[in-house]
Structures are given as structure tokens and as C-alpha cells.
């Protein structure tokens, strides 16, 4: 073949540019690069270990009250003291943490799933479908989440699964909006036009192009959703609308401790409060780091 430009290939693809690995590896790479995200991930690991493995090292009775042991300050045998009902506070922190983490994770992920599907449908269909679906989320978002949660929680006595459903039923709105925007943007990308011109259909567009490209956004949003869900659990418990005792979570521990602040039982308040701050901040840091990892636009060659 005598194509004059053949000689003009140059040095070929630049060797310096690294290949783009899959989402999992990029997330890992982001963690090692972004110290804040790494710190978040480590804190989360530690908290999960504390709640789920901690009881093995520090076994306590979290079912039966022991009024003889009530209201003790931190000391030998009870590193964080005891509650007004005689539960060991450290053990209670582990026990309550499970509820917070389980409900938070489940509700956050469920909300992300619901929101993603809803948002993707709205964004991909566009037009009237989009307008109708989005006005509905606008209306639901107009009512502050906490008010909606309280009304629903007042109607129904929550158990763990019910709590998950209640929180997810309110929390799916913001991922729905986000993913809708993403789908709308992806839909008009040139590579989707190119694919349509090859004769490709909607299925290929969604599963080969839109989903893989939106996965980062969904993943990042999921971490924020979990953080929010953990906060919602805490708010509901604080308002006395969460799982009934002897079950507990960090929010209800804190709300139970408020009565005793006057008498200086600080150990009833600060450990659960700080635990909530820590877990939510850790999820947010992680999400922020992941966002950086996924938002990196391929640099110009």
C-alpha cells in the first residue's frame, strides 16, 4: 500500500501515559493517593471491627438491666462506665453501633439503588417523562426529610427492617436527581451518537456505555447516602422514634444520656456522639476521595 502518510505515524502512542484500570483498582489507587480518603477508609474499618469484633474481646450483657451497677463512672471492668440501667457503656456502644451501621448501610444502599433506577429512567427518557418524574421529586424534596421521617415514624412502630425502609423511602430523592443529571449528560455524549450511527440500540447504550460511565457517580453517591442514612437513624432515635429498647443505636444512647448531663455523666454522651461524628465524617471523606478518583477526566494525550 502506498499511503504517503504511513511514514508519518511518529513515535506511536506515548509510553508515559498509564493505562486506565477498572473502577475497583482506580478506587484503590485513589485511596493511596488521597490521604483524607485513606484516613476515612481506615476509620471505617476500625469502627466496623469495633462494633462487630469488639464484643469478642469485651463481652457484656446488653439484654438484662442491672440496677446495682447503674450510673458508674468509667473504671476497672467498665472502661466507659455504665448507663442508668446498669448496661456497660462500652459494650452498649458496640451493640448500638451495629444497629447504626447496619441500618445506615442498608438504607443508604437501598436509597441509592432506588434513586439510580428512577433517575436513570427520567434522564434517559427525557421529555415529558422526565418532567413529570422530576416534579414529583421536587415536591418530595420540598418537605424537609426529617419532617417526613417523623410523620412516617409516628404512623408505624419501627423495627430494624421497617426503619431501613422508612429511611430509604425518603433518602432516594437526592440520588435520583443526581443520576438523572448524569444520565441526561451522558445521553448526549458524542460516543453515544457514534454508537447509534453504527446501528446500536438502547440496550447497548445503557449497559455498555451509560452504566459503566455512571458507575463512579453512583458509587461516590452511595458513600454519601450511607453517611446521611446513619445521621437519619440518629435523628430519629434522638426524637424517640427509633427501634424500642432494649435495642439501641448511637442516637438513642445519646438521647438516653441527656437526662444525666446535669449530674455530670459525660460518658453517656460523648462516646456515642463522637462515634456518630466519626463514622459520618469517615464516609464523607471516603466519598470525597472517590469523587476525585472518578472525576479525573482523561488527560489530553
Amino acid at each position, binding site marked *: 500500500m502506498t499511503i504517503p502518510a504511513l511514514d508519518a505515524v511518529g513515535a506511536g502512542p506515548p509510553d508515559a501515559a498509564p493505562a486506565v484500570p477498572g473502577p475497583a483498582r482506580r478506587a484503590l489507587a485513589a485511596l493511596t493517593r488521597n490521604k*483524607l480518603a485513606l484516613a476515612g477508609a481506615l476509620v471505617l474499618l476500625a469502627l466496623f471491627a469495633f462494633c462487630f469484633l469488639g464484643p469478642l474481646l469485651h463481652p457484656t450483657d446488653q439484654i438484662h438491666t442491672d440496677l446495682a451497677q447503674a450510673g458508674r463512672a468509667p473504671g476497672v471492668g467498665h472502661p466507659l462506665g455504665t448507663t442508668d440501667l446498669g448496661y456497660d457503656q462500652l459494650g452498649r456502644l458496640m451493640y448500638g453501633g451495629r444497629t447504626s451501621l447496619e441500618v445506615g448501610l442498608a438504607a443508604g444502599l437501598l436509597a441509592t439503588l432506588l434513586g439510580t433506577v428512577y433517575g436513570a429512567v427520567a434522564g434517559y427518557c427525557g421529555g415529558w417523562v422526565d418532567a413529570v418524574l422530576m*416534579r*414529583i421529586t*421536587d*415536591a*418530595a*424534596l*420540598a*418537605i*424537609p*426529610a*426529617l*419532617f*417526613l421521617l*417523623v*410523620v*412516617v*415514624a*409516628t*404512623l408505624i412502630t419501627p423495627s430494624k427492617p421497617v426503619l431501613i425502609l422508612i429511611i430509604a423511602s425518603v433518602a432516594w430523592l437526592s440520588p435520583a436527581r443526581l443520576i438523572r443529571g448524569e444520565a441526561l449528560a451522558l445521553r448526549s455524549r458524542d460516543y453515544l451518537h457514534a454508537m447509534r450511527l453504527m446501528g446500536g440500540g438502547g440496550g447497548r447504550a445503557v449497559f455498555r456505555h451509560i452504566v459503566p460511565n455512571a458507575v463512579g457517580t453512583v458509587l461516590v453517591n452511595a458513600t454519601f447516602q450511607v*453517611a446521611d442514612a446513619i*445521621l437519619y437513624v*440518629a*435523628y430519629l432515635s*434522638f*426524637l*424517640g*422514634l427509633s427501634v424500642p429498647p432494649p435495642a439501641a443505636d448511637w*442516637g438513642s444512647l*445519646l*438521647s438516653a444520656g*441527656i437526662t444525666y*448531663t*446535669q449530674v455530670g455523666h*459525660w460518658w453517656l*454522651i460523648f462516646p456515642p*456522639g463522637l462515634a*456518630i*461524628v*466519626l463514622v*459520618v*465524617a469517615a464516609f*464523607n*471523606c471516603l466519598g470525597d476521595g472517590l469523587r476525585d478518583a472518578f472525576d479525573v477526566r482523561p488527560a489530553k494525550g
Partner: protein
Amino acid sequence: MIRFLAKRLTQALVVLLLVSVLVFVLLHLLPGGPARAILGVQATPDAVAHFNHQQGYDRSLPEQYVSYLGRLLTGDLGESYKLNQSVASLLAERLPKTALLAGLALALAAVVAVPLGVLQAVRRGRAADYLLTGVAFLAYATPVFFLGLVLILVFGQQLQLLPAEAPQADTVGGILAQAPALVLPVVTAALGIVAAFSRYLRSAVLDNLAEDYVRTARAKGQSNARIMARHVLRNALIPLATLLGLYLPTLFSGTLVVESMFNYPGMGLLFWNAAQSSDFPVLLGVTLVVGVATVLGSLLADLAYALLDPRIRSVT
């Protein structure tokens, strides 16, 4: 501008209607319907049927909705089960107080967040930026009730500097007269929003600093400080208007907790008390009003944005 106004107004109206539908649906989700909720679980089926007929609850749902909407438009939100007062009059008492609390918190948040965000952007990658970023993350993660508790413990009980209870007065003026007692509630409600706003402002200022028009201003001989004041801040602050609107739901959620913690006599406290006593007309009334306030608030925020940004303002 007129087209934008018309479009935005229609949208707000549609959303308002949908909010009323949502609350209407919640009303019918009450266990045993509105009748059981009002007459109690012990009521006989006859009594329930009689009540349903009398109140029109045996008609079709669309019919019921229309009459519900009609009542809403005349300001009839029902009667409180427990307080022997109409929901509308309760809200009329409480709404201004909550508006005061929310307004003060929002103003405080904006006033504190702007310099913080600018500082972070200017000092990007230095100690001050990292420190403030860390603090913002923690502040954002702190539940309002925990923050309030800590503030009460520190400033109310340990240092005895500020009252731990909100002002108790019937009028807004009376509340304002007890300014020191307002400090803790307002600060508590504002902190999370400060964190969010300063994060936004940091990135907005950084984005704007990278814009070509900043280079143009430098090429004219402007100093960095004046470029920030005259060019960058203006562009970074305009979108803050919409952000204010977007944070209204968060703000109202915050006031709900703050009011119940500090015993502040606003809508949030009313709502919380109603939740404790299953006073559904009040619960739903407050929910509706908060929803409407949010819609109108974000409408105002968008209009402010349109007025501030010449690119939208001058489009006919």
C-alpha cells in the same frame, strides 16, 4: 427574564400542588384512616362510619382531595386533637418565630462562611486550608443535637456564659429582646450550613480564579486583593443565592431539632410535641407549611439569582 419568571412560577405552582397531594396521601396512610386517628382505636364501627360520612371521607379520593384543597385555600388546616385550637392559628403563632430562628441562622452561616471559603481558596494546599477543611468535614458530620448538647454543656453549664434555654416570649420582638438566649440556638442551627457553604465557596473561588477573565484583570494591572473583591467574589457569590434555597430543607430540619432541644417556641417544637402525642392534624399541618415555605423560599432564591446574574436578567 419574564419568560424565566413565568417558567419558574409555573414550576413552583406544580410543585406546590404535588406537595399538597403528598400530605393528602399521608393523611390517608394514618392507621385506620382519619376517623380512627381522631375518634380513637376504641370507637365503634358505627361511629367511624358516621364520622366518615359527616367529614366526607366516604366519597371518592379525587373528590376528597378537591374538597381538601378547597379547605387548604381558605386556610382551614383542621383542629388540633390535643390543644383545642385550630392548626392554622397555632401555625400563625409559631411560624414567625421559626422564620426568625432560621433567618438568623442563615444570615450567620453566610456571613461566617464567605470569609472562611475565600481564606481556604487563597491558602489552598497550605496549613490553614487543610485545618479548615478538616474542621468543615467534622462540622458537617456532627448531628445538630450533638452539637447543641456540647454547646449547652460548655457554654451553658461549665462556663455559665449563655443561657441554655431559648427565649420564651409570645412575640418576635419579645424573643429578640432576649438576645443572649438566642445565641446558642442560632449557632447550633448555623454550624452545619457554615461548613457546607464554606466548602462551596472555596471551590467556587478556586474555579473563578482559574477563569480567563482573572488573567485579563491581572493584565490590566489590578492587584490580587482587588481582583478577588471586584471580579472573583461577585461571580462566586451569585450562585450562593440558589444554594441558600437548596439548603432550606436542611435548615428547617435543623430548626426542628434545635427548637426541641432549646425549648424554643417555634413550629419545630410544636411539631415535635405533636409527634409525641400523635396529634396528626398538627403534624400534617406543619409538614405542609414547611413544604410550602421551602418551595416559596427556593423560588425567591432563584429569582434573586436571576436578578443578580446579568446573563439571566437581560434575557427576554
